[in-house]
């Protein structure tokens, strides 16, 4: 999709990070504005209406999670948060507080661009699209049909709902809680075991290998993501 003219606000206290983001996101056709702290970030967000915000959760002068909520109040723009490794709880909290996706520091630029693109593309409330195609997979929402390489795959009601939800947000992470609430209802929002079972079944039916997934990627400790850029590099080993 075309990125021309989309405005991205980068909020990060590290000048080196801002520099490389300015250069590389700029090279991808985005207009990049910067903020070095929370106050500046909020001010620029209000004044200049960015199309997307890249936000460092580890700002020294402000609680990143509170900042997510405050930006959310100012703007509908999607938020991609930058978070350090091994902080899954913060990632989940940020996502539940209104962030749309996350990237773990240190990160490669490809990964960030993939998240930005996915976040800019997704229109979850739109019903305009009822047929989604990802590679060999096609989902017909209206007719509740899934075909893989033109073969129809039989899915149960829940399996289909789960797959459809993931596909509608293709490229973006959905937390366990979001998935469970949407499909099983709020009273089951902590029953991660349901997801494990159903994703396992989906994978089997779609022939998706968890060690080299084509469709459903596991975001450890956070949720799941439907893969929309099969060429994108897998994240480097976080160990």
């Amino acid at each position, binding site marked *: 999709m075309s990125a021309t003219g989309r405005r991205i606000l980068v909020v990060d206290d590290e000048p080196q990070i801002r520099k490389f983001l300015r250069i590389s996101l700029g090279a991808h056709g985005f207009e990049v504005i910067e903020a070095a702290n929370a106050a500046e970030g909020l001010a620029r967000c209000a004044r200049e209406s960015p199309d997307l915000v890249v936000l460092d959760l580890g700002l020294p002068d402000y609680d990143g999670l509170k900042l997510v909520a405050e930006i959310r109040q100012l703007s509908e723009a999607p938020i991609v948060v930058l978070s350090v*490794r*091994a902080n*899954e*709880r913060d990632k989940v909290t940020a996502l539940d507080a209104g962030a749309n996706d996350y990237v773990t520091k*240190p990160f*490669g630029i490809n990964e960030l661009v993939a998240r930005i693109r996915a976040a800019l593309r997704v229109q979850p409330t739109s019903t305009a699209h009822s047929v989604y195609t990802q590679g060999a997979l096609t989902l017909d929402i209206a007719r509740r049909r899934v075909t893989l390489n033109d073969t129809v795959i*039989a*899915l*149960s*009601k*829940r*399996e289909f709902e789960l797959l459809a939800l993931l596909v509608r947000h293709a490229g973006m992470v959905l937390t*366990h809680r979001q998935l469970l609430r949407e499909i*099983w209802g709020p009273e089951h929002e902590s*029953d*991660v*075991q*349901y997801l*494990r*079972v159903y*994703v*396992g079944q989906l*994978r089997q039916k779609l022939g998706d*290998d*968890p*060690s*080299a*997934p084509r469709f459903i990627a*596991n975001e*450890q*400790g956070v949720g799941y993501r439907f893969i929309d850029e099969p060429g994108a590099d*897998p*994240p*480097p*080993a*976080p*160990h």
Partner: protein
Amino acid sequence: MAYAEALLVVMTCGVVAEVLRGILPTSSITFVFLLGVLAVAVRRGLGAALLTTVLSYGSIRFFFGAPYFDFGVSDRETYIAVTVFLVVSLVVGTIAARLREQLEDAKERARRNSLVYDLSRRLTAVTGIDELTRTVTECVEEACNRAALILLRTDAGLLHQSASDGAREGTLSTTDLAAAQAALDGGTVTGAGSGRHEASPWRFLPVATASPGGEPRVLGVLAVRRSQARDAAKQEEEERLLQAVRDQAAIALERVQLADQRERARLLEESERLRTALLASVSHDLRTPLASIIGAGSSLQALGDALDDSARHELLDTVLGEAERLDRFVQNLLDMTRIEHGAIEPKRQWCDLRDTVGDALRHLRRTLGAHRVVVEMSAGVPLLYTDPVLLDHVLVNLIDNARKFSPSGAPIALSATAARNGAVTISIEDQGQGIPPAERERIFEMFSRLEGSDSKVTGTGLGLAICRGFVNALGGTLVVAEGGAGRGTRMVITLPPSPLLELPRGEEA
């Protein structure tokens, strides 16, 4: 009680004598009562014996000397017999009572001696100062029935230690403490009965051993409450006993203190070793990737357009790859620090092992390169209630290790099975050179590396220590076993069974 017994004995003798009345003459009947006096003297001591004598004498005169039921005795022979009885009875009673006393004394001495032998035996087994002071003070309390305290020399002055039940902390007054200090400094006995600090209710005996120079080293003071013994002989005996106890305490104390010092020295040495290894590791393992990054980066900067595309790509690859390596190392250090501080808190959730293994393999895809990992998961492996991030980390480390030690082309086998109780076993097997049984525990220590291993092996030496730390935090175990068919290495993770799981009911298609 004793006196009631005396009465009873006299009555019994009376009955017996009555029975024998017709058979024996009165003078012989007195022997029956003599037996009674003897019995009471041996059993109950002098006082009761005297009572028995008097009662018996009275009974004989009253019941058996004519006229009967009258204390008067008409018969001259009987009179002599009864009087002789009285004298003999008194003498015999006194001797018997005294014998009894000596027997009691001998028993008491034997008890005390056995306590002292017992103390010697118990002190050889004692491992700590508290145990030692408690053993000694209990012995003194039991042997002499006197409260005891042990005060030990500290770097500054004296330190209160344990007390037996008879004394509590803080019962020593300032004057008492001064007396104790005098015993410590001078190496002589102070307190009650010593001529110094006489007013104190305590007696202070210095606990000392001989040092190589010949000068006694006073390690502490044994404080015992003043003696309750009535005669000098008993007091002296108690004093000898206390000295025996004190001497044994000295030897044991010295032994325990030396053992303590040795242990502290060992711990110090161990932490020195770790610190040295850590510094060496950090210095080398941080600098090496940095050297590559700075080298490649500066080349890019300096040579700029002079480089062709592929050269530039290669250098950039180096920068990225080495930076990732640096990141891994920093993460290792952080993890190790968390483990050492017990700061690992698993964030458990229901996980599909297939997911976790898949993640681990994905993370390693670039590193694994040509190495194949063959995954075999038995159908019965249930969902695990565990921390997927920690488990992933462990699997990544172990698979990476297997790769490092595997000859290229040989597959790495990862298999998972479930036991009947729900415990899950994951094993990772390589076809490398294997680990000799003697090394199988040592490799889990921080900074250890395999002796004589292929020098191409990289790594910080922390990986396995971290794996074990994480697996332990998850409630499981990690051990090394021999590879199948006697070659290679097999790492075996065992995770505890997860709680019962409620799964969704059947869904409509």
